[in-house]
């Protein structure tokens, strides 16, 4: 998982937050990199725990 490539994202955020994101992108892009990386890993781990049925049986949806 060490190969990298650039990814473009378009987000719709409240104006003040969008300004803040743009500021962080300029000043500390590596931070945003870590945030996205964390979120994607977290989601993948969640899905694996959910599907494995290891922690408890999966719910049966009607």
């Amino acid at each position, binding site marked *: 998982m060490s190969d990298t490539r650039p990814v473009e994202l378009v987000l719709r955020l409240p104006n003040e937050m969008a300004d803040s994101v743009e500021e962080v992108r300029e000043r500390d892009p590596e931070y945003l990199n870590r945030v996205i990386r*964390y979120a994607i890993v977290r989601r993948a781990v969640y899905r694996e725990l*959910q599907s494995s*049925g*290891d922690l*408890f049986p999966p*719910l049966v949806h009607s």
Partner: protein
Amino acid sequence: MTFKSEPQAIPNVGQNSDEDRLGTSAGAQGRADVDPVLRAKYLDYCSAQISEVFLSLTDEHTYQLMEEAALEADLTVGALSFQAMMKLVTRKLRKSVPLPDIETWVTEYTEDPGRYDPFLLGLWESEEQDRHGQQGEER
């Protein structure tokens, strides 16, 4: 932070196909009466604990874990998707990262939600939206 019980071992993985090797297990029986939202929040919390450890690993250590898990599942690392790699690493970390059992967690969460809410990302809400979206597309 201590928990009252040890996490359960990961069950054996099937040998018939890649999906079986990485896929679902029967799991334990008898815990289906927990509120679905609390179950989802519990998973959200557990994902936080495992992700913290995952992201603290070096690339070399991550790859080593992946290789070990792939060997155990009779898979080749080079042919795996990101999702499959995440499954393998999650399984390895699941064995070493201490997690509360769901009953303990639900009891503690019910008594003091503020203790755990900061760990939750709302993944369970996104998953519900995805599920309903997929059902809508299937109709």
